[in-house]
């Protein structure tokens, strides 16, 4: 019974996440950019832009220039999250891949760093007057949600162990459209329920910053206006380039 509910939940969540994101990305990609508006100085070539985006994604370069506190908390949170996510791959492959096994210890402790980063970001929403002013309830709830996911995960790992073998069997089953049993462990159910929630709200929330980053004209357009003519809607109706 529990297995079936969670299985359905995950199928629905995955479908909403994938379809929702695909639709958003399609919309972003299809919406024309009438004018060239890179914020300069910016690279003049495509390669340059790709390098810049690498630096933005890996190091949060602009945020670093902007605010060291937000950068520190935000960067630690995001990078730890990647480690934690990578670590979780072991529950979705029958044989654990070598590199996944290798990062296992790092991924485990990254869970703490992730929650610490989130806590720092949340504290700023209360303590810094300017950020308190711009925060909506959804901004607080989003942090609460991810902290709860991290917290429930860490609890299972370090305090109240769950039957992880059974969880893995359940997940492997889901991938093959076989619905198995899930341990009726409260922390596990909370953890999985919140993850599904996060997946569902992803395409309709500010989590869209993840794909949005790659479409922001101010960052991803090359500074080559004088060399390459950017064709806007004025040339030929219906003919659009970016």
């Amino acid at each position, binding site marked *: 019974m529990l297995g079936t509910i969670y299985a359905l939940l995950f199928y629905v969540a995955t479908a909403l996440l994938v379809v929702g994101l695909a639709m958003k990305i399609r919309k972003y990609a299809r919406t024309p950019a009438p004018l060239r508006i890179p*914020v300069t100085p910016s690279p003049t070539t495509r390669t340059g832009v790709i390098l810049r985006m690498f630096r933005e994604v890996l190091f949060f370069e602009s945020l670093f220039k902007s605010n060291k506190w937000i950068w520190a908390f935000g960067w630690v949170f995001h990078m730890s999250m990647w480690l934690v996510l990578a670590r979780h791959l072991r529950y979705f492959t029958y044989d654990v891949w070598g590199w996944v096994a290798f990062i296992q210890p790092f991924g485990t402790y990254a869970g703490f760093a992730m929650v610490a980063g989130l806590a720092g970001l949340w504290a700023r929403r209360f303590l810094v007057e300017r950020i308190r002013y711009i925060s909506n309830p*959804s901004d607080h709830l989003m942090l609460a949600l991810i902290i709860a996911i991290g917290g429930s995960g860490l609890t299972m790992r370090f305090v109240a162990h769950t039957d992880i073998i059974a969880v893995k069997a359940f997940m492997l089953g889901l991938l093959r459209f076989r619905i198995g049993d899930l341990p009726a462990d409260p922390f596990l159910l909370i953890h999985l329920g919140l993850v599904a929630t996060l997946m569902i709200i992803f395409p309709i929330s500010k989590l869209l910053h993840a794909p949005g980053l790659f479409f922001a004209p101010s960052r991803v357009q090359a500074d080559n206006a004088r060399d390459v003519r950017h064709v806007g809607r004025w040339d030929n109706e219906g003919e659009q380039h970016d």
Partner: protein
Amino acid sequence: MTEDIPQMDDPLDIPCLKHGAMEGLKPFIAAPIHQEALGFPGELVPDWKERALEKMAEMAETNRAFQIYLDTCVKCGACTDKCHYFLGTGDPKNMPVARQDLLRSVYRRYFTFAGKYFPWLVGARDLTEDVLHEWYSYYHQCSECRRCSVFCPYGIDTAEITMAARDILAHVGIGQKYSNEIIGKVHAIGNNLGLPAKALGATLEDLEEDIEDETGVSVRIPVDEHGADILLVTPSADFFAEPHIDGLLGYAKVFHEAGVSWTVSSYASEAANFGLFIGNQDQMREVSLRIKKAAQDLGVKRIIFGECGHAWRVAYGFMNTLAGPFDFLDQNYPIPQHILEFTWDEIQKGTFTFDKSKNDHIRLTYHDSCNVARASRMGDEPGGQFEIPRNVIKAVCNNYFDMERDTTHESTLCCGGGGGLLTDDLMDLRVKGASPRMTALQQVTEDHGVTHMAAICAICKTQFSKVMPKYGYDMDSILSVHQLVSNAIILTGQEIDDAEDTND
């Protein structure tokens, strides 16, 4: 008149929030005649709400930036202390993200799932007439300077949101008098001032005489000269305002010494393009098309732009898209070219003789204008827009000192009067918005005895000549870069008058 001038120890000091500090501040609303001249409704239309939402939907469909910027903000707060108007006023609605939120809240309410069903959760709100007026107020407290965008992890450019909001407002009948009236003059007469061709010709003749009186050399400032190689498009302030005019004399001397043939056009006697400020691409296009027509009619081979910030943004970044292709021009030169690129090229070729000591009474710093710094380039390398003006300055001036690095280059602070705010009805905002820049200037005055500041933007120059006196500088402490060039250049055949040196 006593304005309260913000006291800052450091140009980037973050103020405590002063809720409502600038509430209700509004530039004059355009009269029906100025609205209608641009094809906007004369006054607030009865179905303003439907029309505003329609316009917003259209923007989301046709402008990727609008849609992405509204969707991707995570409210991290990194931009909150980056706007000079916030630093100068403390009004929280002048924090870039809060400024975006004025519109984002409405966008969410009508165009997103969360905002439709859970408005309280995501700060979504209904569009009301009060909201329109709040927009009018705070979207005219943004100079579209893009400083916030540099510091946002997603590059969110509040200037784009400001432009969109102003465009929506104009479309429901609430346009800004200052900008719309000026655009109307460009359409009717050819420049922001409404200076007709005859008067322009007379002014330029006077200036030719001034140069001859000063140097003994006859230097021409041609108008509407068919067959000239270069069309100079410069802000009309260069024809009459100080210190702009001294910059124009500089261009004339530079062209003269370089031995090129050039002309200004009375039909396109304006580089400024306020279509950018009001966020209306079609207006921006019409103004740009005048320049193309002038270039074609006069049969020139090259177009060079004078010292003007947003004009250079439009020329560099948009003109080719809006009015191009410019395949009738000589493709061996950048299209368009900036006057500083031209001058720097010639300096490198050794074309000019300078007497740098002519600028020795000046201890100089340089203000990077926002549109040049963050929305364009000069030369072939990224950042040329910072290096080339400084190179030219250092070639003609012995005492040069940069302001604090956090307030120059891509982090430059707006003069406080850009983006269509250079109007007397916003003087309070202009003075406060200038305070971070003025504080940075005061620092180099203390540290290095700086007496003057140079700029390459007509708006910056006008703004500073108005606000610098409030911060303890003379109004002529702001200079054109080509004014410095003009001071130092020794024209071929010029008599060197020693007596003149001593009586400064």
